[in-house]
C-alpha cells in the first residue's frame, strides 16, 4: 500500500534520512522505532510531502506521491496524527473533528463522529469542551480521532504515547489494535516506546541516524538482542 523506496531527506545541508526503504502492506500495523533524533518524524513528514524527499520514491497504492502537495496527499487517503498532537486548542472537540472531516463527504459527518466517540467515549462526553482544556491523553485521542474523520485508508501515527501515563498508553494502543482488526485499517506507527509498539505491530523497522538498521516481525524484533539492549532495557 505504501512503499518508501530509497528515500533521502535533508534540512538545508543536514541530511536526516539516508536511503530509507519501508513497505507497509494493506491491513498491517507496521511500526518504526528509533531513538530521539533518528529521523522518524522526518520520514512521516516526508511521506506527507513536507519536507520533500531529495532522492527516492514514495508510492501510495502504486501512485508516486513524492511530488504531490500535502493537501493532495491527504485527499488520496492518508491521514496523520502528527507528533505533539497539534489539535486546535481554541476550538471545541466537535470543531476539531469537523476540521478532520475537511476532505470527507459531509453526508458522513454524523456517522463518522459516532465512530470516533465509540472508539474514545470520553471524547463524546467532552464534545463541547475547548480542546486546549483536555488532558494530554484526551488530546492524543482527539488527534487520532480527527485523523480518522477523513476516512483514510492509511493512518500515520507519530509517537501517540509521548508523555502519557502507562494506563492511557495501553488504552490508546488497544484502540489502534481495534481499528486495525475490526475495520482493517492500515497503520504506520512511529514510536519510541518500543515494547508496546512491537507487541502491537505485525512488522517493524528500527531506524538509527537516518538509516534502517533492522527489520522483521514484531516478535522477532522483540526477541532481538540488539533491540533489547538499545530500546527495551531500563524498565519498559
Amino acid at each position, binding site marked *: 500500500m505504501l512503499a518508501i523506496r530509497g528515500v533521502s531527506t535533508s534540512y538545508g545541508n543536514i541530511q536526516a534520512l539516508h536511503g530509507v526503504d519501508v513497505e507497509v502492506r494493506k491491513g498491517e500495523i507496521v511500526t518504526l522505532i528509533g531513538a530521539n533524533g533518528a529521523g522518524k518524524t522526518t520520514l512521516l513528514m516526508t511521506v506527507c510531502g513536507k519536507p520533500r524527499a531529495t532522492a527516492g520514491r514514495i508510492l501510495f497504492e502504486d501512485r508516486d506521491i513524492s511530488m504531490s502537495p500535502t*493537501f493532495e496527499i*491527504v485527499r488520496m487517503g492518508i491521514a496523520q496524527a*502528527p507528533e505533539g498532537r*497539534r489539535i486546535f486548542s*481554541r476550538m471545541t472537540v466537535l470543531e476539531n473533528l469537523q*476540521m*478532520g472531516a*475537511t476532505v470527507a463527504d459531509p453526508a458522513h459527518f454524523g456517522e463518522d463522529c459516532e465512530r470516533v466517540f465509540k472508539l474514545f467515549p470520553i471524547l463524546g462526553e467532552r464534545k463541547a469542551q475547548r480542546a486546549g482544556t483536555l488532558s494530554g491523553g484526551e488530546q492524543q485521542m482527539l488527534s487520532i480521532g*480527527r485523523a480518522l474523520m477523513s476516512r483514510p485508508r492509511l493512518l500515520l501515527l507519530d509517537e501517540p504515547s509521548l508523555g502519557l501515563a502507562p494506563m492511557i498508553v495501553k488504552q490508546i494502543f488497544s484502540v489502534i489494535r481495534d481499528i486495525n482488526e475490526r475495520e482493517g485499517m492500515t497503520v504506520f506507527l512511529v514510536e519510541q516506546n518500543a515494547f508496546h509498539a512491537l507487541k502491537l505491530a505485525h512488522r517493524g523497522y528500527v531506524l538509527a541516524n537516518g538509516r534502517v538498521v533492522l527489520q522483521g516481525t514484531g516478535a522477532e524484533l522483540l526477541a532481538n538482542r540488539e533491540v533489547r539492549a538499545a530500546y527495551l532495557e531500563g524498565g519498559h
Partner: protein
Amino acid sequence: MDVRALLKDAGLAAFVAFMLALPMIGFQTVDFSGGVGITVVTRFGDVAISVVLVFVGRLALSLLQYPSWRPPLLMASVVVVVGLPLLKTQAHYPVITWLAVIASAVIAVRSAWLHFDVSGVVGRDENNRMGDAAAFIGRWFGPVFVLFAVIFPFLPTTSRYLLDLGILVLTYVMLGWGLNVVVGLAGLLDLGYVAFYAVGAYSYAIIARDFGLTFWACLPLAGLFAAFFGVILGFPVLRLRGDYLAIVTLGFGEIIRIVLLNWASFSGGPNGISSIPRPSFLGMPFHPNPPEGVTSFHQFFNIDFSAEHRIVFLYYLILILALVTNSFTLRIRKLPIGRAWEALREDEIACRALGINPTNTKLTAFAIGAMFAGFAGAFFATRQGFISPESFSFIESAVILAIVVLGGMGSQIGVVLAAVLLIGVPEFFRELAQFRMLAFGAAMVGIMIWRPRGLLAHRDPSIRLSDAAGAGR
C-alpha cells in the same frame, strides 16, 4: 506580601517616568514676549507631580494583583483623601485631579468586588468567566444594539452632529468587521488594510464620474476591485508569516497611497477627486431643485426639503452595509472555509495534514476582507463627495487594527464596543482639549491591563451540540 518588592517596582516605574518627564515636561520653550527668539522655562514642579503620580499609580496596579481587598481599598482612600486637596492646588490641570479620582474609584470598586468574590481569587479561570460574560453580551446586547442603531436617527436627542458621528462610527464598525475576517479569524496581521479602503473609494469615484454609473452599480464593482487587489497582494506575500507579513502589507498600504498621490492624471494627485456623485434613493436624488424630469426624494414623498434626509439615508446605508458584513462573517464562520481560517490561525502544519490548502484559504480571507473594505470605501466616497490620498494614511490602518485588537480578535460585538470607544468617545471628550489624547492613552493602558486579550476575547463555537448530527458541511 512583599512590600519591599512592590515599592521597588513602583520606584523603578517612577524613575522611568522621571527620565521621560524631565526632558518632555521639565523644559518648555516659549517665545520672548515681543522680541525675536525663544527662551527655556523650567517646570520641575510638574515633573515632580508626574513622578509621584506614576509611583502611586504603579503601586495601585500592583496592589490590585494582591488577592485581598483591604490594601487596595486603603490605598485608594489615601489617594483620594490626601491627593485631592494637594492636586487642587494645581488648578491649571483640573483634568489630572479628575483622572486621579476616577482611577481611585475604579480601584476601590474593583477591590470591593474582589471582596465579594473571594472564592475564585486564586487560579480562577478568568477566560471562562469572561467567556460567559461575553457570550451573554453577544446574545442579548447584539439585538439591543441593532435596535438602538435602527431608531437612533429618530431619537429626540439625536442632532445632526450625533448623526454624523453615528455614520463615522458605523463606517469604522464595518471596516473593523471586514478586517476581523483577516486578522481575527484567519490570523493574518494586515497593517495595510486602508489600501483596500482607498481602492474602493477611488474605484467608486472614478467609475461614477467617468461612466456615470449609479452608486448601486458601482458598489459591487468597488468591492470587486478591492478584492482583486487583495488577491494581487496576497499571492506573493501570504507565504510570509506574522511580522514579515505585517511589514509587507504596511508597505503595500503606503505604495497605494503614494501612487494615488503622484499619478495626478488618474487620481487627481494631492487634490484628490471632488464632486463625486451623491447617492440617490431608488433613483431619486436628495436635491432641493432637481433637474427637469427627475423627481427628488422630498417631492416624491411630498415633504419639505431638508438636508438631513440625505444624512439619515447615508446613516441607514452604512448601517445596512455593516450588518451585511456582520451576517456574512457570522455565516461564513460556520462554513468549511471559515473554520479553516480559524484552524489556520492556530496551526498551519496541522491544517496541511488535514487536507487544507493554506495558500488558497488565506487568499480567500484576504480577498473577502478587502472586498468589505472596498464597499466601505465606496460609501466613504459617496458620503464625502470628495476624496484625496490624505484620507488613506497609515494611521487609518492602525486605528482599524486597534479596533479589532481592542475588541478581542475575532469578536464581532467587541468590534462594535471598540469602535464606539475609539471613534465615538474621543469626540465627546473634545472639551478636554489637549488632554483628550491623555485620556485616550489612559483608557488604552487600562484596557491592556485588565483585558489583555481584548474587551470581549471570547470565541463562540461555530457548531452547537444540537447541530452535531448532519452538520458536517
